[in-house]
């Protein structure tokens, strides 16, 4: 692989199945254990300095993918390489060291900040956990992180509590908490979906600026393709625990190849009253991930489904340079 830069993060056939809770009687009579196949064989690379957007509807497995990559939950199978090392083979201490480099920004800034801690303690906590600073140095690092998150003047925020802040300010505290460890890779899970419309752009711009300044790499998880287009370089579209299409965002939006991506993009509302667009209708709704359809998981709703789609599961293939699709009709 000489000449090709090694990806910062490589995800190989990642699976996360959750057991469906059984009742007492069912467990006595040894009925078959059912599984929710939240993530069911997902592979992709994220290169240094890149923003990969993971896009899909609720329940498609995008959040579980993000959390498993950070090993916040253990996978059912598969590998995640960070700088070439499989993180699932690391012991507790090695993993703790690695966590410094991999951080997360959560969806809900109202729930992801401890309401009983001050802003100072929230942002200082990761430094204390990793024993990276104390005393004056700790304060200095916290102030700097708040400043980077554009909470100005940072000193004015140190002794405040989350409830005294607006949603946008809270999310900036969440960003400062992730930044304070000087990470290389950040998973951001719907970071602006709970924030007022007028403040969203500020958070997205901040994330873009921080990426440029510190050479960060993001996995940006969102259901909003317009947001993905704004912040991202490449996009992976998930459906029922699988990636169905992946490629540069502009290319995927202007020329989607998978029938599901086509439908998804045709239904995104556009803030322009003159835009006349033809929406693609899909039959039914997303089936349950407990017993996904055989063959291609999208076939019961696909307008172009053929017999092969029911019998055989398509694999994600590179059909053009950089464009990956899992569809029998495209390959």
């Amino acid at each position, binding site marked *: 692989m000489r000449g090709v830069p090694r990806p910062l993060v490589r995800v190989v056939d990642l699976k996360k199945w959750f057991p469906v809770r059984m009742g007492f009687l069912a467990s006595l009579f040894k009925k078959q254990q059912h599984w929710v196949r939240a993530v069911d064989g997902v592979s992709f690379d994220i290169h240094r300095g890149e923003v990969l957007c993971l896009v899909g509807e609720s329940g498609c497995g995008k959040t579980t993918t993000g959390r498993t990559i950070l090993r916040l939950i253990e996978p059912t199978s598969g590998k995640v390489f960070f700088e070439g090392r499989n993180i699932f083979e690391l012991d507790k201490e090695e993993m703790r060291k690695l966590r410094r480099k991999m951080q997360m920004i959560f969806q809900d800034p109202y729930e992801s900040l401890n309401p009983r801690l001050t802003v100072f303690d929230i942002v200082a906590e990761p430094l204390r956990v990793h024993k990276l600073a104390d005393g004056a140095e700790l304060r200095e690092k916290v102030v700097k992180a708040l400043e980077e998150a554009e909470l100005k003047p940072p000193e004015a925020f140190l002794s405040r509590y989350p409830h005294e802040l607006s949603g946008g300010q809270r999310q900036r505290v969440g960003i400062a908490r992730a930044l304070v460890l000087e990470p290389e890779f950040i998973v951001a899970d719907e970071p602006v979906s709970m924030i007022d419309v007028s403040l969203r752009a500020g958070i997205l711009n901040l994330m873009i600026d921080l990426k440029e300044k510190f050479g960060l790499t993001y996995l940006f998880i969102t*259901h909003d393709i317009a947001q993905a287009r*704004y912040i991202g370089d490449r996009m992976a579209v998930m459906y029922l625990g699988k990636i169905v299409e992946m490629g540069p965002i502009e290319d995927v939006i202007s020329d989607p190849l998978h029938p599901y991506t086509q439908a998804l993009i045709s239904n995104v509302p556009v803030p322009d009253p003159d835009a006349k667009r033809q929406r693609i209708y899909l039959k039914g709704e997303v089936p349950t991930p407990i017993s996904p359809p055989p063959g291609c998981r999208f076939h019961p709703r696909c307008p172009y489904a053929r017999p092969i789609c029911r019998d055989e599961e398509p694999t994600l293939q590179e059909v053009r340079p950089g464009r990956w699709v899992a569809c029998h009709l495209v390959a």
Partner: protein
Amino acid sequence: MPLLEVKNLRTYYITRAGPVRAVDGVSFFVEKGEVFGLAGESGCGKTTAGLSILRLLPRYGRIVGGEIIFDGVNILEVRESVFRRKYRWKRISMVFQGAMNALNPVFRVGEQIAEAIMLHENVSKEEAMKRVKALFEKVGIEPSRVDNYPHEFSGGMRQRAMIALALACNPELVIADEPTTALDVVIQGQILDLLRKLREELDLSVILITHDLSTIAELCNRVGIMYAGKLVECADVRSIFKDPLHPYTQGLINAIPSITGPKTRLRSIPGAPPDLLNPPRGCRFHPRCPYATEKCRREEPAYIEVRRGHWVACHMVA
């Protein structure tokens, strides 16, 4: 004469800390057969304005001033017993926010809708169920599913059922509060198309309450933009998107990304929406406005028609 005219409506929530001026002098009208969008961020008073029209405010909510003229009658002066019989749900109905979760889980979906019909119209249960089936057909649910329970419906179907419930008594005006917000994109598109189809087929008037300007652009004829309990701008949908006059409207439009058009850097509006217990003096937007002057801090701007059909409350525009 418009179907609905809201004049200088003021609705406050009485709290221990004082009155929260959720709607503070709002005026707009809705023509027959049009979709009027009421847009703004969370806490701007748009839902309160909708609930005021149906007189469905929580106990601590009070309409302290203004008029709501529906088909020539000030419905704020109608007695509650008459309003309940002749107006609420009969002529004006609502699709509530997060309503897919508002169906009673222990009753069949069809029965719940039939109940509304039987309450308002003197019909037998058989007749009511027949109408529910017709309503299901109209909103795109298989009529045989009237006997299903809510848990047997998907999210999109439940939202369709709530729209059927709102249409149960053939109302003239439907207030739809964030009807697509909790739904996935593909289902959102279908619900928007359904609302558009119903408006055309039934000559229905709709007030669409949402924070999502893209939804407004897809569906509305005219739009009112609310900020901190006030309408700051109101015009036809094209003018709002192509030639917004109020700095807040301009700010909102510059702040939303799109999947079409050139990719330019978005601008966010500095600061955050104010606390309606103590709204700023003068223009409520002045602390966040890039053009604010001394006058904006001191004096509240009047809401005036600066062009035909285009109202704005801003000192800089007037």
